[in-house]
């Protein structure tokens, strides 16, 4: 698998978590979420808009985020998403699950069979 493929698969499994974590810092519109993930990951994470917006709408439908329209930094009307109380709980649960999964994978990767 090439690097691009690795990036894509990583996101598919964790996009909701990354969005929720980004919104923990405050209301963001979709463009700002994508920019944030790109910058914070040192340009490793390229969020495709085709994944980002359906994910935002899905999170809103589940009640984990709520949205409102407001002026953006460029003075244009933009849709801002903000974390709900339910979303915060979900973020904590997903963060815990993600870290456990990470530890488990690390254990497997670091495993060295005992020498005979």
């Amino acid at each position, binding site marked *: 698998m090439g690097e691009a493929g690795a990036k894509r698969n990583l996101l598919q499994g964790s996009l909701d978590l990354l969005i929720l974590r980004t919104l*923990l810092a405050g209301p963001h519109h979709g*463009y700002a979420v994508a920019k944030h993930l790109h910058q914070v990951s040192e340009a490793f994470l390229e969020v495709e808009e085709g994944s980002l917006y359906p994910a935002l*709408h899905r999170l809103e439908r589940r009640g984990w985020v709520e949205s409102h329209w407001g002026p953006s930094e*460029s003075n*244009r009307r933009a849709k801002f998403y903000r974390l709900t109380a339910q979303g915060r709980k979900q973020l904590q649960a997903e963060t815990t699950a993600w870290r456990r999964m990470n530890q488990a994978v690390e254990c497997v990767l670091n495993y060295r069979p005992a020498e005979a």
Partner: protein
Amino acid sequence: MSWINFTRALRGRVSPPAASGEANIDEELLFHFRSLVDENLAKGLPADAAWHDAQRRFGSLGRYADECRQVVMGGFPMLHKISVAGFVVLALVVAWLFSEVRSLRQAAAAAPAEKTAAAKAAKSQKADLAGIVVDSAGKPIPDAHVLVILKTWPGNRYRQEDFAGKTDEKGRFRFAELVPAKGQRAVHMAVVKDGYALTTTYDLKKQGEAMQTDGLKFTLDAATKVTIAVRDAAGRPAGKAGVLPSGRQTADGQDHVVYFQAAKPIEMVADGDGRIQLAMFKRGDQAKIYVRLAGRDWEEHGVTIPDQGDMVEITADAPNAATE
């Protein structure tokens, strides 16, 4: 014409004017796309290249809108047809923008003499917007902000422009050759001066209807001075928070609204304790105030204006810190 203006105009032609979930999805995606174009323009790319690169990076507007609608509708099959209609609308948007970029480039390449002549011809058909601002005793109010939003529909497209000025020592203001004499047009005016209740007017005239644009008179009521205290989500004073009065509903139900697009000249900054004295509303008004914490976006808050000298607290919704 700005992108948002265009989409509003387009929506006005192809669907009911009320903002629907459909239109919101379109507008949300268009905002993202336009931000990518802006990003490219800021890097110095020419308009065509900025557009094409954004299109390449963004991908399919129609497909994304379709996917969002399916999420919103929960995949309900009968409503899928609506999303197809949305796709058609987006395709029209893309086609129109492409032609808009092309026409802008052609206009830029036109001979300067031709442009000057055209500008003069256009100017000659515009009326001055002028008048006076006085207090309730009829005394002129100098140095008052006069914020203007001009709406026109040239070639059946919607255009919204903002202008700003101040009254002179005799309370007079004048915007030379501003309002088109013909065609449908609307003028929104906001007069803002500390010490007086912010006052706005809106005048829409259709083709053939006369509009009074000179000799306008604004009579401002004295305002109730209150202190606005801005706090962050943790309850801490938000020092140096931005504060922007954006509207008021009077006790008798009259609405006065400041367009955000025109409001830059009246932005204010709270002191180091997040406090600012405001005298732009009247006691009992339902006031709308934008606040902005450092590095955040503007948030609109509604407050009821208390008695003279009292304090109103506004808690910005932006979070204090990560909670891990």
